[in-house]
């Protein structure tokens, strides 16, 4: 993804602040941290093998990995994961879209701000598990409930950041557009949205983490599929290795999603990093 950015701007090789990767000693790079994870896993393995930790509640790491691999090969884990990710992305998509829309309206029209700010501030602090039972009453325990939960929880970080972004658009940029006769919806598309996009991305990144959490919680409370359901039912059936394999899957998924997000963000907001750097100089 980062390489793709460089290729898109062939005339500007010097602007990407990252220097070409040279041979650096491994303990001066992120490989140090990767090695640390490996050490922790080996310590885990040893602690269980030597009986320091009871193997009843914590299996050996090697056993977990073997189970994990078996579950992947059988397709079981991927099926659960697919159900979960589908819910998460649909919910996230609706939450982000509505958050951007409401944030724009609130930032752009004082009326919408006065109308929606209080209700936002009342609903936002409620931890999502607290209203989960209410949502079940209305939407049941199927996908609709989970998608709603995820969308609702993803909404607020995006809404608040979009609002801040719209409020902080440089008035000179708006005036510039006005001198070219640009106003109304065109102004929003051409100036307000791009200028607020760094804020919107910040909100989207927070919402992504929130969406993952709410996905797991809602699947643990009521579901017949999904990774949250898988973890909880493994625990209830004393399939401890499967349970750990499910958690491991979430670690990997969370990591990959975040890396993917950062890669997209770096590409879309490349101008923003360059611009703010110039302002600082």
């Amino acid at each position: 993804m980062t390489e793709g950015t460089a290729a898109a701007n062939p005339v500007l090789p010097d602007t990407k602040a990252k220097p070409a990767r040279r041979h650096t000693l491994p303990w001066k790079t992120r490989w140090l941290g990767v090695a640390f994870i490996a050490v922790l896993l080996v310590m885990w393995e040893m602690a269980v093998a030597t009986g320091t930790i009871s193997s009843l509640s914590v299996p050996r790491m090697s056993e977990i990995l073997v189970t994990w691999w078996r579950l992947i090969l059988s397709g079981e884990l991927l099926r659960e994961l697919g159900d979960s990710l589908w819910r998460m992305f649909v919910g996230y998509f609706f939450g982000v879209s509505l958050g951007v829309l409401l944030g724009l309206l609130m930032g752009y029209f004082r009326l919408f701000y006065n109308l929606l700010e209080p209700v936002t501030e009342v609903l936002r602090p409620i931890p999502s598990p607290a209203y989960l039972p209410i949502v079940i009453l209305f939407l049941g325990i199927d996908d609709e409930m989970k998608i709603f939960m995820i969308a609702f929880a993803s909404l607020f970080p995006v809404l608040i950041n979009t609002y801040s972004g719209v409020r902080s658009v440089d008035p000179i940029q708006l005036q510039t557009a006005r001198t070219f006769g640009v106003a109304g919806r065109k102004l929003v598309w051409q100036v307000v949205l791009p200028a607020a996009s760094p804020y919107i991305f910040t909100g989207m990144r927070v919402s992504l983490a929130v969406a993952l959490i709410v996905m797991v919680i809602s699947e643990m409370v009521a579901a017949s599929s999904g990774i949250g359901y898988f973890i909880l039912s493994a625990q209830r059936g004393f399939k401890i290795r499967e349970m750990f394999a499910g958690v491991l899957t979430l670690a990997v998924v969370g990591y990959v999603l975040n890396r993917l997000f950062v890669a997209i963000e770096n590409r879309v907001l490349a101008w923003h990093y360059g611009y703010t750097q110039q302002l600082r100089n």
Partner: protein
Amino acid sequence: MTGPSRPFLRIRGLRKKFVAAGGTTVALDGIDLDIVRGSFVSIVGPSGCGKSTLLQIIAGLVDATSGAVFLDDCSVEGPPPSVLYVFQQYTRSLFPWKTVERNVAYGLENRETLSRASIAARTREIIGLVKLTGFERYYPWQLSGGMQQRVAIARALACRPEVLLMDEPFSAVDALTRAGLQELLRSLWRELGLTVIFVTHDVDEGVYLSTRVVALTRAPGTVAADLPVELPHPRDQIATRSLPQYLDYRAQLLAQLFADEGLVATEVA
């Protein structure tokens, strides 16, 4: 384009009051100006005298409290298509998410129903005119201050405006860059038959560039001096600035501004 002497921008009894918590400030107090087509008018004055406000009212960005601006006998109620504005803060006026060529094409894409090809052609042409060929794919923030201001000028000129309003456009760049931008602006003004209204706090810059210099008093701003500048064209940074007439215009204006500030008591002949 008609003859260069028809007054086509008329400013009548312009007043602007700003009401704030601390009280009311009168920024402009009765400005009357007739500006002929093709002239280069500089507006000089102390900072805070309302010269930027005057420019924003002419641009239709700010409403006057009373009085009116007429462009070709039409009252200016919003940004007129034939008038474009170049801001002092080029870093904030250029869109940082657009490349140089996208910035320059911005006005064209929004204003005129031109084909993609003719927009590209005109963009290329105007980028050449401000001597930025080769930098089309750069982002503004990758360029020096002088180059960025040239992008902003190109973006305005791409729409072929009749009037170019410039608010201290060269005040944020170093002296050599400023001289280069002044030459570029003068040649564009002459080539394209523009009418330029140029706000500056620098009397020398005003005299050197203009066919007429208007000095405003400190707020409430009124016209303190209105001086036609009859220096020969083409002008030269060294030769023109050494002419006795140049020094005379400069002295007259400075004397006026200094007198307003209470800085000198003696009359300058």
